[in-house]
């Protein structure tokens, strides 16, 4: 069982994608926070950001707080949104319970579905 969080950043059609693996809690969330900061520096005008939770087995309020703050930031910077992909049913439940779904992020089943809904950039 992975108690750490591995973060990697890539882009597809100039849309930044964060791939996460492991658990997001009070110990590991700074890695996600740092990666969001890096992306907003590298892609200051992006209107879309994808976070891939396919290999995330656990997320709690600290992780959701970071994503919610990231969503607020991208909305402020570019009126953009964060797309969450590949979330497990348990993680989808956490998003539902949080009551945060009405803010600036959307959930998609997979990367291709998210990309098809996102206006291509550049």
């Amino acid at each position, binding site marked *: 069982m992975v*108690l750490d969080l591995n973060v990697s950043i890539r882009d597809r059609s100039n849309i930044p994608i964060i791939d996460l693996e492991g658990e997001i*809690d009070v110990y590991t969330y700074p890695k996600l926070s740092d990666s969001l900061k890096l992306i907003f520096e590298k892609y200051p005008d992006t209107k879309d950001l994808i976070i891939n939770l396919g290999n995330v087995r656990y997320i*709690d309020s600290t992780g959701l*707080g970071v994503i919610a*703050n990231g969503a607020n930031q991208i909305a402020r910077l570019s009126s953009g949104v964060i797309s969450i992909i590949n979330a497990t049913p348990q993680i989808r439940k956490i998003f539902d319970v949080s*009551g945060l779904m009405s803010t600036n992020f959307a959930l998609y089943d997979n990367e291709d579905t998210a990309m098809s809904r996102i206006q291509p950039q550049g």
Partner: protein
Amino acid sequence: MTQSIQITLTIPSLSDYVGVARLTASGIASRMKFTHEDIEDIKIAVSEACTNAVQYAYGDSLGDITLVFTILESALEVRVKDQGKGFESSVPIDSQAALNDPDKIGLGLGIVFMRSLMDHVEYISTPESGTNVLLVKNLTSRTDIN
């Protein structure tokens, strides 16, 4: 009358050890044959209680967080206690209120999760006397996979 079993775990108020508390909760709930979904709910609630203690109880000092797991015939009770500074009752307890106060979003959401995922929650926090959280999950359906 069935005797209850208690398991006590004390962790330092460091973020590194919240995962240890979570794994312990998972192991006990699994032993009690909670369903996978219920085990995940218990893990999150226990983790949230510990996270609040790590982030708010002792400031920059180090203290203890004590978890007492009580295994009952039809429920798991978890008490999460610290002897930290406690907090006033103005903490936001819904996610929208928490969003309006970014410094407390984690705490606000944490309490929302505990209340939403467990069957009964008591949250007693007194300034300078610490915080005592009771989390109860009823064993309404068991998995027989084990």
